[in-house]
């Protein structure tokens, strides 16, 4: 059994045992961590494996949350259909923004995605269905497939865990497929990938849409967990947060974003009462990561084990 398989089994057992830890960690916190871990993994597909830094992923995450919230609350959709609706809308949004953004590379791409996500933010602020400053509150958790009541935290936990495993498996398959190899080759040397006959823009766009869709799936699920879709989810702070999770955990690693999401969310949880210190500490972690710790936690650990 190799190391990756061991980590898989350990994570799987830990994930399944989540609700048993309810005396140590608050279940809603764990579910939030799972949602953010999926968000960060989806983001990592783009940054770590395709080399595109999007600074506007909050748009897909937050907008999908609104869509799911609206679908479940106003149309009475079941939770799995609500999440599906959010995911599809996020994919569409990803297609539109992605087609624009990949017309430029590097830092321009980061600025374009940031600007477009700000556009989405203002739309969410002004549109009727999002509830403006109030957001959508009291989103019903509903019954999974119309059968299992998700108001119970344990059933909801397994629903969220299921969504996470589904998303993570898709990402894992993607990066280990021939398609994923081409993405990596574009990251390493785009002109060469093009000269080998690959239509780099098409591959980038597919990666972009996939990443946006899975980010949306994470946002949709989160809106069910917290029963709330709010402006905070579409704000650029959220885009920065997912960059941080990926960077801190280790971009381009399989498990890094999960570790990053757990660390950042844990930190926010314990610093929540300290006001602006969350922002300051977040900024400081950014600076330290960039200056001294570019491989991230998992990247450094992997390098340690290889020696």
């Amino acid at each position, binding site marked *: 059994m190799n190391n990756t398989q061991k980590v898989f089994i350990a994570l799987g057992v830990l994930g399944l045992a989540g609700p048993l830890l309810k005396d140590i960690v608050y279940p809603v916190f764990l579910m939030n961590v799972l949602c953010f871990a999926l968000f960060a993994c989806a983001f990592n597909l783009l940054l770590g494996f395709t080399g595109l*830094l999007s*600074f506007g992923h909050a748009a897909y995450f937050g907008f999908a949350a609104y869509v799911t919230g609206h679908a479940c609350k106003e149309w009475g959709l079941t939770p799995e259909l609500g999440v599906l609706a959010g995911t599809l809308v996020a994919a569409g949004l990803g297609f539109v923004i992605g087609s*624009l953004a990949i*017309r*430029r590379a*590097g*830092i*321009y791409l*980061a*600025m*374009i995605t*940031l*600007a*477009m996500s*700000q*556009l989405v933010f*203002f*739309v969410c*602020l*002004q549109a009727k269905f999002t509830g403006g400053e109030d957001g959508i509150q009291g989103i019903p958790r509903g019954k999974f497939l119309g059968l299992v009541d998700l108001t119970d935290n344990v059933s909801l936990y397994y629903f969220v865990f299921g969504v996470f495993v589904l998303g993570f498996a898709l990402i894992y398959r993607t990066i280990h497929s021939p398609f994923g190899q081409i993405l990596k080759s574009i990251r390493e040397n785009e002109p060469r990938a093009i000269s080998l006959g690959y239509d780099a823009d098409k591959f980038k766009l597919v990666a972009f849409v996939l990443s946006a869709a899975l980010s949306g799936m994470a946002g949709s699920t989160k809106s069910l967990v917290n029963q709330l879709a709010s402006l905070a989810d579409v704000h*650029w702070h959220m885009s*920065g947060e997912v*960059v941080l999770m990926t*960077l801190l955990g280790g971009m381009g690693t399989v498990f890094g974003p999960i570790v990053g999401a757990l660390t950042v969310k844990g930190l926010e949880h314990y610093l929540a009462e300290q*006001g*602006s*210190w*969350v*922002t*300051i500490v*977040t*900024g*400081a*972690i*950014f*600076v330290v*990561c*960039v*200056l001294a710790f*570019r491989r991230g936690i998992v990247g450094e650990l992997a390098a340690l084990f290889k020696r």
Partner: protein
Amino acid sequence: MSEVFGIPLQALLSQLLIGLVNGSFYAMLSLGLAVIFGLLNIINFSHGALYMMGAYGAWMGLTYLGLNYWVCLLLAPLAVGLVGVVIERTMLQRLYKLDHLYGLLLTFGLALIIEGLYRQAYGVSGQPYPVPELLKGATNLGFMFLPNYRAWVLVASLAVCFATWYVIERTKLGAYLRAGTENPRLVQAFGVNVPLMVTLTYGFGVALAGFAGVLASPIIQVNPLMGSNLIIVVFAVVVIGGMGSIMGAIVTGLGLGLIEGLTKVFYPELSATVVFIIMAIVLLVRPAGLFGREK
């Protein structure tokens, strides 16, 4: 009272003026970003935070030290520039050999730290800053009342923008700078101290942001979030203009401010988003930006 498309001329002109004033802030900030990007290949995400520091510099100077507006207009940008020099020397300098994205991430982190510290110290509510005595009141131009302070902001920022353009495009120092943008190693080989030039360029770019911050302080409430709200719009301005030319940055900034002002008159719902929509259109038609060069 004369009207244009059903809008009173008075209202139209005053919105246009507000648009131009906003545009001059876009121009100064995108100019600083362009100068920094040219030499350092870094997009300075902390630009907005440093602009906010400039505004707070003016407010703190007045509140704690009793320094008047004019002294602060000189000192605050210098202080911000000094902060920039320290940032460049201690941190940015280590990143030049890496992917440009790391510069963006580092300055983003710095922006969060600066913003957080100011929020911790002063809260999120704004601090009012009085208009200097000399520029109070308004002048009657016959067809509209022109607030003196806004007129001053327009004149001062245009003067600074064109002075910057002149120094970069028409002087020997500017020639070194432009050469450094094209090929820093060759310029270094000719005996120019390129690392020093890079440091001073960064310092100058962020001092421009600080200057804009002081100019803005009597117009808007000085608050810790004023920079981050502005910087995203400025990023869109930079994408629209392309970072290839100094004059391009100035013209695009002013132009977009005007368009934003017009939108406020004719279709207010779009005024917050119009710049982003224009950015999307420009990307479809001319991906390199209006004044940019495809690399």
